[in-house]
């Protein structure tokens, strides 16, 4: 306490931080956005968002039901990936596909049993609904798996070994059960915190400009730097609270393993929060108008963080111009950091460049804010 009474600047800063906290406490919507929103979004998305397709509805059609066609169908029915329904003819199955009641049709022709023993082999016709290309590809992959197992079982039953020239041995590192939740939930933490960090601050400066309270503040001995610092400290504290809550939920509620170190995560998260808060402050300082600041925050944070951060779409597959744009998205670096820390561990060759980029972004946004707010006062 001694230093605080001694140093005038520190005392002023303390007053400013207190003012920010009072403002936060008296408008419950900021608290709501810092704590309730991460809770709500993470629970909703953590349970709701998944790319693992199972229970895929498929139609099974055998033009001439035989023991062999029954045998193949029952191996599809035994797989937990599918919810199969048998149809009597192609016409009704195709109608079900058009109406969206099934995703795929497995069709065995009348001569299936006969062709099985022929030299050419029998055809298993599969029609998938290609509109959702990703689900279509998954369906195709799962059916292929069922098919290989079925061939193997048939060969064994006949007392032979089924020999495929090349056998694939797949290993998925870091996420052996290939659960999409394990990579989506850490990514969601990054996206939710971008929204919150930027949103929280995008409006506060704009509001002070719009209402003229900032000019009022500046005729006091308080300097611009102190005003900015006051805001950053207050909202940083709020954001860190939300961040800890999100990480806690990811680990304990969703059971995402945190392989890397918690402390490194905390440090990177702080860097990221500075960048996100800086972006919010920069937006609101440049807009000086809540309406425009709000619009820019909506347009500039959520969709880019959702689509361009590598959270769901692979950045390497984008055209190089778009890849370049992704470098301007704060969330991109943090998504990479959290995915690595949660699943692979402390891999410095991934962490350091991304952390450095976060520092650069934080400095960049903060200096824009600082310069823009100074310039206009002269």
């Amino acid at each position, binding site marked *: 306490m001694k230093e605080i009474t001694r140093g005038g600047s520190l005392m002023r800063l303390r007053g400013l931080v207190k003012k920010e906290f009072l403002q936060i406490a008296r408008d419950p919507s900021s608290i709501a956005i810092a704590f309730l929103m991460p809770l709500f979004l993470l629970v909703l998305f953590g349970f709701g968002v998944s790319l693992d397709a199972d229970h895929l509805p498929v139609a099974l059609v055998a033009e001439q039901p035989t023991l062999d066609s029954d045998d193949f169908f029952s191996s599809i029915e035994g797989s937990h990936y599918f919810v199969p329904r048998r149809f009597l003819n192609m016409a009704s199955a195709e109608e079900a596909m058009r109406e969206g009641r099934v995703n795929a049709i497995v069709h065995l022709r009348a001569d299936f049993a006969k062709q099985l023993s022929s030299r050419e082999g029998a055809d298993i016709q599969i029609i998938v609904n290609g509109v959702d290309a990703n689900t279509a590809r998954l369906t195709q992959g799962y059916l292929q798996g069922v098919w290989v197992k079925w061939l193997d079982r048939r060969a064994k039953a006949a007392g032979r070994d089924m020999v495929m020239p*090349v056998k694939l*041995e797949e290993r998925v590192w870091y996420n052996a059960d290939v659960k999409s939740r394990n990579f989506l939930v850490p990514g969601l933490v990054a996206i939710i915190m971008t929204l919150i960090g930027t949103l929280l601050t995008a409006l506060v400066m704009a509001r002070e400009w719009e209402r003229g309270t900032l000019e009022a503040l500046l005729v006091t001995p308080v300097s611009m730097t102190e005003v900015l610092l006051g805001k950053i400290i207050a909202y940083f504290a709020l954001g860190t609270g939300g961040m800890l809550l999100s990480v806690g939920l990811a680990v304990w509620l969703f059971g995402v393993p945190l392989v890397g170190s918690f402390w490194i995560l905390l440090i990177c998260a702080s860097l990221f929060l500075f960048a996100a808060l800086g972006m919010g402050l920069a937006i609101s300082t440049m807009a000086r108008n809540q309406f425009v600041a709000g619009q820019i925050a909506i347009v500039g944070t959520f969709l880019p963080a959702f689509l361009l951060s590598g959270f769901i779409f692979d950045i390497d597959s984008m055209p190089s111009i778009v890849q370049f744009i992704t470098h301007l998205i704060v969330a991109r670096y943090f998504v990479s950091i959290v995915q690595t820390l949660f699943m692979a561990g402390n891999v410095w060759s991934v962490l350091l460049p991304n952390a450095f980029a976060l520092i650069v972004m934080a400095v960049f946004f903060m200096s824009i804010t600082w310069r823009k707010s100074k310039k206009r006062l002269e």
Partner: protein
Amino acid sequence: MLTRMIALIYKEFLALLKDPKSRLVLIAPPMIQLLVFGYAATFDLKDVQYALYNEDKGIASRELVAAFDGAPAFRRAATLQSEEQIAPLVDSRGVLMVIHIGPRFSSDLLSNKGAPLQVIVDGRDSNTAMIVLNYVSTIVERFNTQWIKDHGLENAPAKLDVRAWFNPNLESRWFFIPGIIGMLTLVTTMLVTALTVAREREQGTFDQLLVTPFRPGEILLGKALPGFIIGLIQASVILLIATKWFDVPLLGSLPAFYAGLSLFLVSGVGSGMLISSLAVTQQQGLLGAFLFMVPAVILSGFATPIANMPHVVQMVTLIDPLRYFLVILRKVFLEGAGFDVLMDQFWPMAVIGAATLALASWLFRHRMY
């Protein structure tokens, strides 16, 4: 009454468009976003960097490697000499996949014993990992078929013959771009409507508006129409870009598309007005818009299918207008749907629109400060 309405609508347009900054925010971003997101949003992998660790000296392994090198989706970024090199390379995200061919690969293959091919994939993004494995198994399967044919081996008793309807090459861009139309339209509608009433409340002009001869229904209409019209224009422009620039086929009927769009806009504008009439300050209006928009996009089935969600979450998606509009967009674009199959999507949006607008207009009078 009509002149009165025109004056009100004119005033609302002025409020939106007179400020050059907010004009820019409304017009430029949707176009840029469609172009950027249109290229970004795809699950088709184009440039998977992989490393090869080949211990085999035989010709067979060289043939297989050639198949990988020739595949347009794969690019060899490294050739490894020892097993120890694999882990650091994958850890640092240097490559997404490592192909390991054992020393006995060719001899196993030639003696019909079945040669194992080890593939290691970075599972940090499990969806990308699954797609990579899918590509790999296609290449291996093609190699096997060719091998069986060349060496006169016995065919498998049955083979798969896969065809895809509506999107024969399984281009995921065809799936996402119609979705982006819905998403951007929702964002613009929310931007235009969610802050209108809140801003007037904060500035105190809303009370003035309420004491004019306008009835709440008329004020509502005046505030709702700009959002509706801007949304309509924007969606039409995006539709044009989607079909002309990105070459997404538009097979279905345009009247069905516009009917769906209008209902979607009514429900979107209604939700925006409801948020706006609940909010006392612009900040609350903005937060409300976010709290509606983010779940509305993520739970709409835009990127992750609704069918994969747990039952409870699926129930929540029923009040999401974007969910219905996405189905309409995809069915109209790719499946060539007309009015008959889309009725199930039309009426829920109409219900959402009617309910939110009615509630908003009631709140105009009953939420006063």
